[in-house]
């Protein structure tokens, strides 16, 4: 790549405003997540052209269209492999991945587990509304037992997936949970997630005001309790995090469940990238390397 002209300037919220306004339903939880991400980027002062926002398909996955970065609106459930490819090809980019609970834990579940264990250095935000929003309200993998939807009108009979325990079991090096209704807390969590070197996962309660009448803002607000408020909670203790992940009911923990910083990231562990971002390396190989390949065949 040739050299770019960059006029350094302080990033403000307006710099992250997308070309169009979100077309989410008024009151949708996703607005808050968008705002928190934009605030986090402003606070971290990351220039928008150095950020890639990758999503799948869903209401939540329309996110890249509403934030002014290099956006990719990919296939339902496939944001993580796309984001991994992007990060491996240019690890100088800050990579954010956004999507829904259906996108990430349903159809995308396999990628979620594998991207996690690979410790790809990106922040994965699941805008978890425990329902399929864009397809007009079906059960999702995080819908609670008994919840009635168009696809399970007599109530869900499947135990929901626990994203926090799953991420921990898959070897995530940063696991958090946020609530779109607590902007300050969420923004801080997102900042930490971006700063973390490795795979950061944040499950964000982001109520669907149209299709989820069980898990609403009103339902969550009195229940969420910040882990940060408990001074004895140690986010480096994996077993403690696992134990906390089971808590659900009158009290639901949010915050940073777990973080470890001793594992290499995928791009860090790859010697080929030691010479810099792949996209900035020479597209041609040295002549002697080419010759060695032919010599092997003679």
């Amino acid at each position: 790549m040739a050299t770019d002209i960059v006029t350094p300037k302080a990033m403000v919220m307006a710099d992250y405003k997308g070309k169009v306004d979100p077309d989410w339903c008024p009151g949708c939880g996703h607005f808050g997540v968008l705002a928190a991400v934009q605030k986090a980027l402003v606070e971290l002062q990351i220039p928008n052209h150095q950020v890639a926002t990758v999503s799948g398909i869903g209401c939540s996955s329309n996110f890249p269209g509403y934030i002014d970065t290099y956006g990719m609106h990919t296939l339902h459930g496939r944001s993580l492999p796309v984001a991994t490819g992007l990060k491996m090809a240019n690890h100088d980019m800050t990579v954010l991945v956004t999507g829904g609970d259906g996108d990430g834990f349903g159809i995308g579940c396999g990628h979620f587990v594998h991207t996690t264990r690979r410790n790809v250095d990106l922040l994965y935000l699941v805008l978890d509304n425990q329902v399929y929003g864009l397809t007009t309200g079906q059960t999702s993998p995080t819908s609670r037992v008994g919840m009635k939807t168009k696809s399970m009108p007599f109530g869900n009979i499947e135990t929901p997936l626990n994203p926090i325990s799953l991420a921990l079991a898959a070897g995530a090096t940063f696991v958090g949970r946020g609530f779109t209704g607590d902007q300050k807390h969420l923004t801080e969590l997102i900042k930490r997630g971006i700063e973390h070197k490795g795979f950061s996962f944040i499950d964000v309660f982001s109520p669907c005001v149209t299709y989820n009448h069980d898990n609403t803002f009103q339902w969550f607000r009195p229940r969420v309790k910040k882990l940060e408020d408990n001074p004895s909670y140690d986010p480096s203790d994996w077993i403690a995090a696992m134990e906390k992940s089971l808590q659900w009911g009158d009290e639901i923990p949010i915050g940073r469940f777990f973080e470890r910083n001793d594992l290499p990231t995928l791009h860090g562990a790859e010697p080929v990238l030691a010479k810099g971002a792949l996209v900035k390396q020479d597209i041609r190989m040295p002549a002697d390397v080419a010759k060695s390949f032919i010599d092997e065949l003679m």
Partner: protein
Amino acid sequence: MRQSFSVGIGGAAGQGVATPGDIFAKIFSRRGLHLNAYNAYQSIIRGGHTFLTVRTGPDKIPTTDGRLDLLIPLNQDTMDRHLRLLSLGGACLYNSDLIQPGTPADGVQLCPIPVSQLADLSRNKVAQNTLAIGAALSMMGIGFPAMESVLEEQFRKKERSVIDENVSLARAGYDYATQNFKPFAWPLPTTDARYAVLSGNAAMAMGGAAAGVKFYCAYPMSPSTGVLHWMAEHARTAQIMVRQVEDEIGVINMAIGAAHAGVRAMCATSGGGFALMSEGLGLSAQAEIPVVVIDCQRAGPSTGVPTKTEQGDLWQMLGAAFGDYPRVIAAPLDIADCFKLMPEIFNLTDQFQCPGIVLCDLLLAEGRLTVDSKELDFFPTIDRGELITSNGSGDHEPYQRYKITESGVSPRVIPGIPGYTHTVSSDEHDEDGVLISDEYTNNAKRRAMMEKRMRKEIGIAAAIQPPQLLGPANADVTLIGWGSTYGVIDEACELLREAGISANHLPIRWLVPLHGDAILDLLRDARHTIIVENNYSGQFARYLRSETSFTPTGHIRKYDGEPLFPHHIVEAVQEQLAGKTRLSIPVHEIMV
């Protein structure tokens, strides 16, 4: 008839069929001979039956054949199955301690090797293999030193004693044969040429590397796994990031992510894995992110026959992902072409920002061929198309990712450059990348965007070469093939001419877009046209018809998992010219 010599080596998987094959290949190619090798094997790691054919000669060897000059059975099963492939002048070298000879055809020399007399079997379990190679070389009229140096190389990672032992075993075999067996009538010649020997998989991997691939990912799947293995082994020298992914869906999407970031990205699979990738092709087309997918065909449907060849994926390629979108699909004609095609298709997909598919098959992917190393051009033309790689002065028009242009191509930008942020999308979108369907649905914009994308087809068609008719103009028969049938038809034409039937050959390399009009022009005066392909339903014949209405006079098809041999085509042409049938399905003579 081109002069050639065929060796067949058979045994159970794990009995070490590959090593003698490698040794023969090295010895032949260093003698300046061409060769073509094909291994008929089974999806089983130990046991079963494997049969490797190596055919060599001073001219290009476009294919292997069912006729053998030398058979080396490593077990009784191989003797029983394949002795009948030898005819007058042929020989069979076998371990007479273990194997009962069958009844050979007239003029076939049975050459028993008393292995336990010549070797200490307690020390070397595959002694029979090395003895047989030594004996074979003697009979072929090849001096022993050639063998010695190849053995040194072959076992270079082993201890000295292993090398020495193998050399002395080979020597014993060599001497035993010199004393006891009749040499072949045609001693193998030498030439001054030196060829590289490689498989199609290695060729495609190297071709990709030459094209500047920086990111390769795959999920293992026969017969494409060789591409992954080459890439993985050479990743560090070639500075290519190689990833094994959790599944093929992850593969194509990861490749698309890397391609969007600005590097050339490639992946390979076979039919079943391709099915899983097909949704991703639509993403590549709609978001206009170039990506190259190699599909190495194997016999289907479904898991099918994983170790057997077929050309049965064509319609899957044609139908991959729903909706209409521009793309490039090409089938390499031979192993050298597996290399050459890669930079070409990367240039096209970069120029037209669309997916490209290389439709290979097991025959080429796992076969091996001698290639002039000059044909392996590691510094081909690289054209990345309209790609913005810097913001220049920093001043520019507001950027529109999907700007409507005459060519259908809208300049692409490498993410990370200031002032060009935008969103690419799998949803239909407007010129800015804003989602039409989610923001407002506008059927006029939708139509314009469809037409913009589809206009690229014109540019692609203009950028690729129309097919050429090979051979005499006014032939008795025109054989039409695609991809890997190139070699076998080439040789069949030669045999037909010798049999008094003039034949020419229309090989199709670019499948999509197809130069239908050019093909019709070439076939206008053809007297008798036959489409030759390795599948049941005539997938190419049906496709050609869909584009041109053309129907050939006849068809030659095969779907038993094995490739066509030249004489299959010759006999089929003869029966078709005699009016006996319009569809010939040759019976395969090598039973594996």
